């Protein structure tokens, strides 16, 4: 069946007509016809905030180790390299995926969806919806490293040796937060079929 005149309420999952008369979901009354232009701008703004935060998240230390008065700091990447050198390959790979691969992949997928909302792309409608679904579900996994640092700072908290979170951890946690908000602001009606000549500029 073609899905052109219907819209799924993202809160209660009910099917609504997608037309100018529909402003809220018929069952749960959540807003569904907020302007697509607003959704686009909001997603983009939040994504840019997240990407900017990803820079200090990588440049500043995520954790500091204080050993008998001597401080040593390490960023996410340094931490991964250190784990690799120690031979903890599985942990190094988990942290690499959670802290580097997932966030960057998520940035790229949202950028792709935003580009695809304006310009013709090769992927089908079905693919784009699946991409969005993946984008939403991988989000929280990036928090692993921040949580690990928090747990370590509780357990390694002795007079001689202590570990504590650095500025990088705050930047990283905020980055994850803004990326999730960005994905949540993305209105799935921005995923459209350009062949039909339906462009979001036309609808307000």
């Amino acid at each position: 069946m073609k899905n052109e005149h219907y819209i799924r309420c993202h809160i209660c999952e009910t099917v609504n007509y997608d037309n100018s008369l529909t402003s809220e979901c018929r069952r749960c009354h959540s807003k569904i016809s907020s302007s697509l232009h607003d959704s686009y701008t909001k997603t983009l703004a939040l994504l840019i905030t997240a990407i900017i935060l990803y820079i200090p998240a990588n440049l500043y230390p995520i954790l500091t180790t204080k050993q008998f008065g001597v401080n040593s700091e390490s960023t996410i990447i340094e931490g991964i390299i250190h784990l690799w050198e120690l031979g903890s390959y599985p942990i190094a790979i988990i942290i690499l995926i959670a802290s580097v691969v997932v966030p960057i992949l998520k940035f790229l997928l949202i950028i792709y969806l935003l580009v695809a909302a304006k310009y013709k792309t090769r992927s089908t409608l079905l693919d784009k919806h699946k991409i969005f679904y993946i984008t939403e579900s991988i989000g929280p996994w990036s928090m692993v490293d921040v949580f690990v640092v928090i747990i370590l700072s509780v357990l390694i908290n002795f007079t001689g040796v202590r570990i504590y979170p650095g500025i990088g951890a705050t930047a990283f946690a905020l980055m994850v937060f803004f990326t999730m908000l960005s994905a949540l602001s993305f209105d799935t009606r921005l995923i459209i079929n350009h062949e039909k000549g339906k462009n979001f500029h036309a609808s307000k």
Partner: protein
Amino acid sequence: MIKEHELDKLIICKKCHTLHEKVLIAENEKAFCSECNVLLYHNDSDMLDKMLALVITASISLFVAFQFTVVSINIQGMEKSLTLTSLFMVLAEHKQYIVGIMFLFLIVIFPIVIIFATFLLLFFMKIEKAGYLTKRLLILLAHLKPWSMIDIFFISLLVAMVKLFDIANIELGVAFLAFVLTLMLDILITKSLSFHQLWEIHHQIYGSIDEE
């Protein structure tokens, strides 16, 4: 206007957004999306009872997980244990306020609110009372769903333990087992708690309830 109840016969897949016409399925049968195989809906007449039992168990195990020691480590006679209180004390000590607040919401407040709201929802739907409240709870749960990170916290805990394995003796606490139990229950609940069906049951019991 076109009749609204016609729309109730339709369902849009959450993953690929394909529009499907609902077909009647027998008890305990499931309907999947023809395009991407995602579960669309299932017919489970004792869902409310089953879920209520699971949610009550999950709330007890979550309480235990938050109340007691998760893990203790021992490095050359020095001991440290991880509890929720020690975690917030350490974060406050290092002035990690933003991380602390995010942790408080993602790991403590949201999971507790989700489990408590689910319990209230199922309970009132079971006794068929409080139609407006249950509707608000259904909406609240949909908003909160992406913001509980207790599963990711557990994975992080395992990663931290592997990191400490070489330098410390690790002892698992009661709360660790409670975390495992909570997560298993959580997976069971998310797998079989169908919001689609809950909204349908809600409509059958209370009819359409409007704002105010």
